[in-house]
Each structure stands twice: as structure tokens, then as C-alpha cells.
């Protein structure tokens, strides 16, 4: 018994020695021992303050950012649907088009369709946006489509990180972009410049940016294939109680 006690004592002494030696080995003066509570408290207080600050600035900037994004989208819809005066936003809820979302649902969880109307109120095509992988990152495309004859009315790249100087020609090269405004038929086929046979569904790809330009064509084809069955059922008339002109947010 007594031996056991002794050995325990020795261990204690050893630990104390190590502890007291540690600060001496450093060049800096001995620091006050800081309690764990203080460490946690400091970071907690700092974190709380940081969070508060971020929330405050976010409250200020979020409306501006949202407004800008909505503005950009609106411009894009009007750009890809020439001759359209106003448009309605429809959501795909349970495979049916609806202008209202189920209660508590997040807007971003639903696929959207922008239905354009001309000044007389007649439907003039729909705008669809879709994103898929390009050469570097996801390319977000919005395009105008006429369900009646399956022709495109326009195309705009909403977001892309394609290679500057090569892949970014998908939105910087007017010759490429222009083709989508000339009413090509869907499904589109990408061909090398000069290799086309004059078919109405051919799009000349960009030399040096084949992957990027084929990605754009693919995105449009996939989106059309996905929406066609829904559009073939017909676009329901906008409910009368929605104010004409501003259904789009």
C-alpha cells in the first residue's frame, strides 16, 4: 500500500516539474493563465457581434441586390422574346403550371416559365432559363421559345465562367448569339462553320469554343424536351384577378 502511494506521489511531482518548466523555455514573458471560459466567451462575443453586423448590412444590401437581379432577369426576358410588352411568371407545381406557389414553398425550388404577351394580350412565346455544365462551370441560359412552331426567338447567357477570349464568345460573339434570334427550329444541331447543310435547326459552333457552344445548344435542347410535354397541354390563361402587366417579380 505504502509503495503505491509513493509512486503516485512521484508522478505528481514529475508533472509539476514539467509544468513549471514550460513557460521558462519560451523567450516571451510568462503569460497569465487564461481560463477556458474566457477563451470561449471572447470568441462567442466576437462571433455574436460579427453576426449582428453582417445581418445589419445584409438588411441594407439585400433589397438592392434582389432588385438588380430581378431587373437583369426582366431585361433578359424582354431580350429573348422580341415584341413582348409584358410577361407572366408561371411555376411548375406537381407537373402543372400555376401562378401561385403552395403555401410556405420557396420560390427557388420551382421551375419557372415566363410567358410573354404582346400589346394586344396575345401570347407571344415563352422564356425558359436553365443551367448546365459548360467548359468551366455551370452556364445559365435563358431563351425565348414559340410553343406553336417550336422555333427559338432569342437566347441570352445569364451567367457563365467560360474561358475569357474563347468560351466567353458564347455571349460576346454577335455572330453566334445572332443565330438564336433568327428563329432556328428545335432540336438544335451544332455544326462546324461551313459544314452545315442549310437545315433550319443548325447552329454554327464557335471555332476554339466547341464545348462551350455545344453546351449552350445542349441546354436549350434539354430544356425544350423537358418543357414540351407541359407546353403541349397549352398554357392556361392568366387568372383575371392578377393585375395585367406586373405578374413578374
Amino acid at each position, binding site marked *: 500500500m505504502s509503495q503505491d502511494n509513493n509512486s503516485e506521489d512521484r508522478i505528481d511531482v514529475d508533472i509539476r516539474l514539467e509544468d513549471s518548466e514550460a513557460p521558462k523555455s519560451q523567450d516571451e514573458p510568462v503569460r497569465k493563465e487564461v481560463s477556458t471560459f474566457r*477563451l470561449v466567451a471572447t*470568441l462567442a462575443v466576437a462571433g455574436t457581434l460579427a453576426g449582428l453586423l453582417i445581418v445589419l448590412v445584409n438588411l441594407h*444590401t439585400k433589397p438592392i441586390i434582389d432588385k438588380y437581379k430581378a431587373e437583369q432577369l426582366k431585361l433578359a426576358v424582354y431580350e429573348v422574346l422580341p415584341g413582348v410588352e409584358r410577361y407572366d411568371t408561371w411555376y411548375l407545381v406537381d407537373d402543372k403550371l400555376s401562378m401561385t406557389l403552395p403555401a410556405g414553398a420557396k420560390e427557388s425550388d420551382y421551375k419557372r416559365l415566363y410567358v410573354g404577351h404582346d400589346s394586344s394580350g396575345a401570347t407571344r412565346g415563352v422564356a425558359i432559363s436553365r443551367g448546365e455544365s459548360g467548359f468551366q462551370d455551370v452556364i445559365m441560359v435563358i431563351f425565348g421559345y414559340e410553343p406553336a412552331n417550336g422555333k427559338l426567338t432569342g437566347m441570352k447567357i445569364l451567367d457563365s465562367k467560360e474561358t*475569357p477570349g474563347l468560351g466567353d464568345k458564347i455571349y460576346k460573339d454577335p455572330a453566334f448569339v445572332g443565330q438564336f434570334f433568327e428563329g432556328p427550329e428545335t432540336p438544335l444541331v451544332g455544326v462546324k462553320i461551313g459544314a452545315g447543310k442549310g437545315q433550319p435547326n443548325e447552329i454554327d459552333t464557335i471555332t476554339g469554343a466547341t464545348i462551350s457552344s455545344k453546351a449552350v445548344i445542349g441546354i436549350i435542347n434539354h430544356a425544350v424536351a423537358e418543357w414540351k410535354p407541359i407546353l403541349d397541354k397549352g398554357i392556361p390563361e392568366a387568372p383575371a384577378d392578377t393585375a395585367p402587366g406586373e405578374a413578374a417579380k
Partner: protein
Amino acid sequence: MRTTTASQDFIRGIWKENPVLIQMLGLCPALAVTNSVANALAMSAATFFVICCSSILISTCKRFIPHEVRISAYILVIATFVTLADMLLQAYAPAQHKELGAFIALIVVNCMILGRQEAFSSKNTVLRSLLDAVGTGIGFTIALVMMGGFRELLGTGSFLGYSMFGPNFEPWVIMVLPAGGFLTLGFILLAMGYIEQRKKTKQSEEPVAEVSS
């Protein structure tokens, strides 16, 4: 403890200890976003904002930050200001924000900023720290704009979006691609090294001249 004067604190970061060109810190943004002058300026402005605010705050609060958690606290402060810069840029300069993309968020891990906090702000007065931060920020801006200028000029034939060489200029696409960043940085460092060497040669004129002859 410090032997430098206030003006030295300020000047140091601009040339002698330029964060990018001498200390080789913050190279990730320096290479990634300098394909145009506008991007370089936006990146510099965001970094400038973050380094100044962090330096002020950290030098003010240095007494309250326990030594054991100082790095976490610095990163927390820096990350907060980066988030603010991110949101402000997105609201007021959306075009630039779109171009810079993820690199804004990556200012958090720019070792130049953390380095200044650890090496300077945590040991010096608020005014000194601010001077140091402003100097470093200017040094970073100079480096980035220099790189952005060369790359935009050669890669797209323009400067700040204004065409410089007319329509017949065939742009060197490589210069706006990532590889161009490395090339540009390499040539700038070469030039800096040359200037430094000549300075040294002038200082100790005769002996070096003999050696070379």
C-alpha cells in the same frame, strides 16, 4: 519595442516589403483576377477595405483577445469584413462582383491580411496599425493594377476598357488566361530584381564593378 517611425510603417508596405512583389503573399488573387484593370481595382478596393478595418479593430481590441485564440479571433474579424465587402460590392458594383466571383470570399484566406494582423496590428497602436494597413493596401493595389494593366493591354488591347491599339491589334489571348498571370508576375519580378540589383551595385560601386570586369 519598435524602432521604425510612423512614416516607415506607411512606406514599407508600398515598395520595400510590397506584399505581392516582395513578400509573395496574396498571390492567389493577384494571379486570378488581374485579367483586367477594372477587376484588379475592384479586388484591391475590397482587400483594402478589409485590411484597414481589420487592422483598426484588432489593434483596438488587442488587449481583450487572449493569446490562445488570437488567430481564430483575427480570422473571425477578417471574415466578417470580407462578408460585408462581398455584400456591398454585390449591391453597388454587380458587374465587378460577377467577374470576381468566388475570389471575394477568398480574401478571408489572403495571408497578407492575416500576416499584417499577426505581425503588426496585434502589437502596435491603432494609428500605427492603420498606417501599416494603408501602406500594405496601396502596395497590393499597385501590384495588382500593374499586373492587370499589362495583361489587359496585351490580352485585349485595351486599358480600363478603352481600346488602345485600334481594331488591327491581334490580342494575345494567353495574357488574360491564368498562364498569362504567371508570365506577367514573372516578368514583373524579374524587373524588380533587376532594379534592386542595380541599386545595390550603385551603393557599393567600385568593388562590384571590378568583379564584373
